[in-house]
């Protein structure tokens, strides 16, 4: 359906508009101006600012988590090493896992890229519920600080990133370490859920006219599916960690076997979140691969429908496989077979995606530009991870290698392969858009090869360690085991990876200053974010676009219509219909405000307080209420403004 074919647009025949005039852009600039300066920082609501914050913060924690990993590798480099000792080692591997999952992977792949790119790709001026998006950043940031300050205070969580009861219970984990972990979950999941709402609403309501569902770029489909996965998965872990917190602070009996409590319930709840979370981390990777492959093969992706369907079905099946993390608990045979089947079934949609990409590369005209290196790396690494996953899906094999370094190797191949390699690809691909300058390619190659070689040195050896019987989470091992040299190799690899990341950071700062000017569309790519200047102005689009195909820019007609009639003197955005993307209504996009920040502060008070005493909620909840009301309470001026111009639907 081309835009002109739908009734609402039919009106738009003759009136032709002149190109955007300077004063028009000035008006937009004034309307969408973001406050500057120190205090302005707390009030920004534009999705580019928030997205950038997420990307930068999450990357910082990626580096911190990596540093912990290196320290762990040093401890394991030789048998009976006394470098860290059990207490520090337990804190480090717990912080490493939790940081990478909760403070890096989801915030960067889902929240950072999503908040920055989605509004641009759908062709609107700002994300839906921008203040909520801002709030989700602050609460995430405070969660990170809270968690890591804990480590500095020797209160780093030390019970593993899934903190199984009863080990994490009050009886076996004295002090506040586990409480900090549990509350960090509450922080980050609150943030993720808020983002999910913003993104889903943006994708369903703010798409440019003509962008019907069947014309959404894959990355939008992926973010949409992801939002719903987050909405259904995250509550499970918030619940399990809250139950744990209650057990520890007010003496409830959820996980006390002596009082009808149940240790397996915790595992069920945790993995009901935990496994979908793996796909929440990995699906953005697939969407990035699709985007890069499409752009650099200079053709529309092959099997768009297949890709959409497989993304959605991964979203569904992802919720049906959690028990494969619990095969060693000795559940009934029947059930185990079912979950083996489900786990194998999820291979199918993943395979479909791989085949479609390969087909696209074959039938396309591949230009092997720099970001494609990371796609190649992804193929190589993720294939290995996926196939070792096939082995783990089989119950008998799993009971042998479960909780050994084989599993460690497996999920690092899946997560680093499925998230970090695409992430670097994405950064090299989109940073030109975000910062206006191209990244340096020579440094990029160093980054890639150091990281790629180091990665395989570290984690491929871990397969052997696992098969030689080395279990996870051991702070040391006996010399008789002959695991020493393999561990030593792994340690060296870890430092190569570190060097690779360091090169990326250098590259980033170098390119900020010396990088080639990117221009609007350095890659001649297809989606709408490449229609706006780099970096994008705060109104994103001077002229709101309409869309005529899956790759908006490639499929645009020579005189593709633009949208007029959206006010440029106030922050007004166009709302379209969820299915066909027909223009439907207009609404105001909120002004900058410091209330989200204050609300986040108040809620942080509530969360942190409840770690130390449940009673504190009685008074810490009051500022929360106040700030939320302040957030909601409308400004008189805006009200009058709206009253003057509002049009009610009949």
């Amino acid at each position: 359906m081309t835009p002109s074919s739908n009734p609402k647009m039919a009106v738009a025949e003759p009136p032709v508009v002149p190109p955007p005039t300077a004063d028009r852009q000035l008006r937009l600039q004034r309307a969408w101006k973001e406050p500057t300066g120190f205090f302005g920082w707390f009030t920004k609501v534009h999705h580019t600012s928030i997205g950038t914050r997420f990307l930068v913060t999450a990357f910082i924690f990626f580096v911190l988590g990596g540093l912990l990993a290196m320290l762990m590798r040093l401890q394991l480099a030789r048998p009976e090493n006394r470098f860290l000792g059990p207490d520090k080692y337990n804190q480090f591997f717990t912080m490493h896992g939790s940081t990478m999952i909760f403070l890096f992977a989801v915030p960067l792949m889902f929240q950072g890229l999503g908040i920055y790119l989605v509004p641009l790709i759908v062709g609107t001026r700002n994300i839906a519920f921008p203040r909520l998006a801002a709030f989700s950043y602050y609460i995430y940031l405070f969660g990170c600080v809270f968690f890591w300050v804990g480590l500095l205070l020797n209160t780093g969580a030390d019970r593993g990133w899934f903190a199984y009861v009863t080990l994490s219970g009050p009886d076996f984990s004295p002090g506040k370490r586990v409480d900090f972990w549990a509350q960090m979950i509450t922080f980050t999941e609150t943030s993720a859920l808020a983002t999910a709402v913003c993104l889903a609403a943006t994708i369903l309501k703010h798409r440019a006219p003509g962008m019907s569902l069947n014309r959404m770029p894959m990355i939008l489909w992926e973010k949409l599916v992801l939002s719903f996965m987050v909405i259904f998965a995250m509550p499970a872990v918030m619940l399990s960690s809250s139950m744990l917190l209650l057990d520890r602070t007010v003496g409830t009996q959820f996980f006390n076997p002596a009082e009808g409590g149940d240790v397996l319930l915790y595992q069920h709840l945790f993995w009901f979140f935990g496994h979908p979370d793996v796909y929440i981390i990995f699906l953005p990777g697939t969407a990035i691969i699709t985007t890069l492959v499409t752009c650099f093969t200079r053709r529309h992706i092959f099997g768009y429908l297949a890709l959409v369907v497989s993304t959605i079905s991964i979203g569904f099946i992802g919720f049906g496989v959690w028990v494969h993390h619990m095969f060693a608990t000795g559940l009934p045979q029947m059930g185990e077979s079912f979950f083996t089947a489900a786990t194998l079934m999820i291979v199918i949609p993943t395979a479909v995606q791989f085949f479609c990409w390969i087909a696209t590369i074959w039938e396309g005209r591949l230009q092997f530009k720099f970001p494609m290196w990371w796609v190649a790396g992804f193929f190589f690494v993720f294939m290995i991870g996926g196939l070792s996953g096939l082995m783990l899906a089989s119950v008998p094999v799993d009971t042998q290698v479960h909780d050994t370094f084989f599993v460690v190797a497996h999920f690092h191949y899946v997560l680093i392969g499925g998230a970090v390699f695409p992430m670097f690809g994405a950064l090299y691909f989109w940073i030109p858009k975000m910062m206006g300058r191209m990244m340096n390619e020579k440094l990029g190659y160093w980054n890639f090869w150091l990281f790629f070689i180091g990665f395989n040195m570290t984690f491929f050896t871990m397969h052997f360690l696992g098969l030689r019987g080395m279990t996870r989470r051991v702070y040391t091992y006996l010399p008789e085991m002959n695991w020493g040299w393999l561990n030593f190799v792994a340690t060296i690899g870890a430092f190569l990876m570190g060097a690779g990341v360091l090169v990326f950071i250098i590259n980033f700062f170098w390119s900020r200053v010396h990088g080639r000017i990117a221009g609007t569309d350095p890659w001649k790519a297809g989606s709408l974010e490449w229609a706006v200047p780099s970096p994008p102005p705060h109104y994103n689009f001077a002229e709101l676009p309409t869309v005529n195909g899956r790759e908006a820019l490639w499929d645009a007609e020579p005189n593709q219509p633009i949208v007029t009639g959206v006010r440029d003197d106030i922050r007004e955005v166009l709302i379209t219909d969820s299915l066909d993307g027909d223009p439907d209504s207009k609404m105001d996009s909120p002004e900058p405000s410091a209330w989200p920040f204050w609300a986040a502060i108040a809620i942080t008070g509530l969360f942190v307080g409840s770690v130390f005493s449940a009673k504190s909620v009685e008074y810490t909840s009051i500022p929360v209420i106040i700030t939320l009301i302040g957030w909601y309470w409308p400004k008189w001026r805006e009200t009058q403004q709206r009253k003057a111009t509002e049009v009610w639907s009949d």
Partner: protein
Amino acid sequence: MRIDRLAFLLVGTALLLLIACQREDRRFREAPPSSGVVNTIQVSELHPGGQQIATPPVPNSYEESAYAVSEGKRLFSQFNCVGCHSNGGGGIGPPLMDNQWIYGGEPANIFASIMEGRPNGMPSWRGRIPEDQGWELVAYVRSLSGQLAKDVAPGRSDHMSGKKPEANTPRETPTGVTGAPTHQ
């Protein structure tokens, strides 16, 4: 913008540093607190209720460490203190969760009671219980009447729920004994 984020980190750190945090140390190998002093502690007069000898207040650093207190809790049941004192409620021996301290509620007094024993049945554990475990027990015993900070005292244990978790027991203000001990 990075400057501001830095500001955040600093502020956040400063705030949390206010909560003094050796509470979380796990000190596996260390000399028990005030090991020197111990021998100089005198047992207070044998007939209960008699006026206390002023014992030098011995700081028990374990009362600052959640780990040490929880170890004390474990030992309290493993060494079968429960046998006489039950879970602090008292039985053959006096209750430990009320405000009555027959032989004084100072850490040093309690340490002496454990190590030297008391008339009416409390045996002497000197030589059996290593000193550091003794001090861990002292710390735990004081948590029974809510003497310790809430973030140090243990939470509920994985047994049948008897009494409130130590962390949630209201603080008793220790008085001397009023009248002779009720148990016999």
